[in-house]
């Protein structure tokens, strides 16, 4: 038997907003739908931006990619703000307990000097790559028009700041919260030959104007090789170097990357599938950037896991792109 509370039911006069009903019909809408569709300004802009008089505000022509409806790009995770922070709060809770665990047992300060140096030289400088990713995604969030697209990028942008902060905290744990480890690590980023191709690549992305080119380069091509290389292959390699505890501190990045594949894959698939012109544009950008990403990561691979592992990471990306009928040099034909 079940209990039944009597409530005063009231017939609604409509089930959702008009702009949601025009897309999905007048039926109860999800929170994702009401939060994400057609809430941005689309027309009748009053003034041209002083920083870009070629375009209007919210101008879809800020990228060479053409979509009949940018809202065709949606988030398979259905993240609106509330769902996003809820999810990340859970992830950070797990991460916090790992950091607490390492800190309490002094796991990183007990590492041999040689291993600590390796972490500061090979892993921690990636915090600067994360900051570049943060800047790029903030730009994309400001330039993309449809909210379904823009919001994924601001979430990712803030994620990248968070990941940069987790990497920084690894150094702070190594140096006992003095900042010396971070200073040392930044020195490698600025001057060590190992990082210069990567730093150049990041700086080159910071002058890319087309926001879709930028999301392709940043969130698909760079991350698509870097994350498997660093957080998967290098993670195993570090274990062999006696730094297996670090693995706990980069778990967030592994989970995060796995999750991010869902929206990045979906986005490229929809955009490439829209038209031949779009696919050709994407292909052109891939041809330009993918080899640069590969080259920029070579020194890091050579100093750690080896070129073969880099090639494997590259092949992973190529396989993803292939599902969208895009080619990269990662796989021989």
């Amino acid at each position, binding site marked *: 038997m079940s209990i039944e509370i009597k409530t005063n039911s009231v017939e609604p006069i409509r089930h959702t907003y008009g702009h949601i009903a025009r897309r999905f019909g007048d039926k109860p809408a999800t929170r994702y739908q009401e939060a994400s569709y057609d809430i941005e300004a689309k027309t009748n802009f009053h*003034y041209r931006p002083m920083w870009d008089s070629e375009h209007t505000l919210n101008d879809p022509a800020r990228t060479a990619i053409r979509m009949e409806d940018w809202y065709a790009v949606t988030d398979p995770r259905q993240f609106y703000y509330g769902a996003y922070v809820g999810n990340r709060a859970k992830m950070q809770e797990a991460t916090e307990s790992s950091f607490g665990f390492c800190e309490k047992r002094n796991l990183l300060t007990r590492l041999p000097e040689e291993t600590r140096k390796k972490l500061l030289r090979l892993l921690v400088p990636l915090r600067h790559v994360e900051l570049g990713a943060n800047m790029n995604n903030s730009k994309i*969030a400001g330039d993309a028009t449809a909210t379904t697209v823009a919001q994924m990028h*601001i979430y990712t942008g803030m994620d990248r700041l968070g990941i940069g902060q987790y990497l920084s905290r690894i150094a702070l744990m190594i140096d006992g919260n003095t900042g010396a480890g971070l200073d040392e690590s930044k020195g490698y980023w600025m001057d060590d030959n190992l990082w210069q191709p990567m730093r150049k690549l990041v700086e080159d992305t910071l002058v890319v104007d087309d926001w879709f080119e930028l999301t392709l380069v940043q969130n698909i091509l760079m991350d698509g090789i870097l994350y498997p290389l660093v957080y998967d292959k290098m993670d195993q390699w570090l274990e062999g170097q006696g730094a297996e505890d670090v693995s706990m501190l980069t778990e967030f990045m592994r989970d995060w990357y796995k999750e991010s594949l869902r929206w990045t894959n979906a986005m490229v698939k929809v955009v490439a599938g829209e038209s031949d012109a779009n696919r050709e544009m994407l292909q052109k950008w891939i041809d330009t950037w993918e080899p640069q990403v590969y080259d920029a990561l070579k020194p890091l691979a050579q100093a750690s896991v080896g070129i073969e592992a880099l090639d494997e990471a590259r092949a992973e990306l190529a396989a993803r792109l292939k599902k969208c009928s895009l080619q990269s040099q990662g796989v021989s034909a």
Partner: protein
Amino acid sequence: MAVKNKKLNLKDKYQYLTRDMSWEPTYQKKEDIYPEERFEGIKITDWAQWEDPFRLTMDAYWKYQAEKEKKLYAIFDAFAQNNGHQNISDARYVNALKLFLSGVSPLEHAAFQGYAKVGRQFSGAGARVACQMQAIDELRHSQTQQHAMSHYNKHFNGLHDAAHMHDRVWFLSVPKSFFDDARSAGPFEFLTAISFSFEYVLTNLLFVPFMSGAAYNGDMATVTFGFSAQSDEARHMTLGLEVIKFILEQHEDNVPIVQKWIDKWFWRGFRLLSLVGMMMDYMLPNRVMSWAEAWEVYYEQNGGALFKDLERYGIRPPKYQDIANDAKNHVSHQAWATFYQYGHATNFHTWMPEKEELDWLSEKYPDTFDKYYRPRFEHWAKEHAEGRRFYNNTLPQLCQVCQIPTIFTEKDDPTMLSHRQIEHEGERYHFCSDGCCDIFKDEPEKYVQAWLPVHQIYQGNCEGGDVETVVQKYYHINIGEDNFEYIGSPDHKRWLSIKGKSTDEKAENANKDAA
């Protein structure tokens, strides 16, 4: 490893976790990475002097914000489940929400876009990170407002197409052009406009009145949103103050530029607030305080103290502040009189105040209400009672800058409309005031571009030349449902049936005749 034994304090640690991740580029030129940082003429000599207005790392941000969201959505769910809309003071209140959702919520989204943009434009990483946090907060507000109003939309008219209306409806070009103006400016002006003038100086007169109105009128969904957004707003306000102090401290050449922006954005903000003034004085069945009282407390007193504090930087109070202070006794009445006349072209209902409400206005505005406004309102109420609800079918003259019809009066003569005009490159432009005219003269090339709704209708760009077609087809205002007089409207009838009262037939007939 370098010898460095001292443990970091919180401030330095936060800097390591934010701005220290940035670096001096060498492969690309700094001016190519940050091309928009210089064109406004603001001189930044040292970004290192930027004081972080708050210290919030992402892990803490996720945690706090998720807790807030969880509580907020629990209330939204409870509100919907228990049909909370039946517990508000009176259905007239919902019209304030219609104004909010179509006038203010789209600005939250524009703020998200604007802050994401400036969150990339500055070469100072500390400032960038603070702006990005505001960007994602603004996205939050835009989305939670959709969710907070979602239940009302199911039971009342006029909330059904807010973003569409925001792009088109005549009076919504007032808030839209305000934000477009800020977003199309450079990054430093954007922050002066939105972070400082809007968030810091005027937020208690914009955001807060709506939330207090919700609290006084039994709107649990909206007031809970207001409380939940409060700590975000506090962060935004500290950013606003830090921005202005930082710019002013960086170089003395910045002072006149910032002063000009403060003058401009004060005036634009003041004009925009006319809509809020009318909401406070006329649209809340349970009134919080009068617009004049709010202006005295939040602008004259708090703003006065702020500008006293900024004196040491060489900043004076905004130009035309005296006119704004004087206008506190007039603007809400003038705005409501206008919306009452054009109630056929709004997504909310209008009405004449009841007797005790008129008495409240007389008491709150002893020097102006009885003398200039009450007789007009009583006349209109009488006309309505006799079956002649007044609607004005002539489209009004709009101000080229603030885009409000030129309805405001001269400071020294409340019976004289304030109107200015100038010729620019062979065209004549009209303004509501010296304040707006000055803004135009400073950047005519910007303001000649304005998309003025009345001009656009007359030029045939709004799907038709007659008001009815424009309102229905172009604005998506459902005629006879969303617009016209409140008394006898479908909203009114629904409310009476919720409260178990029968429809007042006489009032209904009176409405029908006029429509």
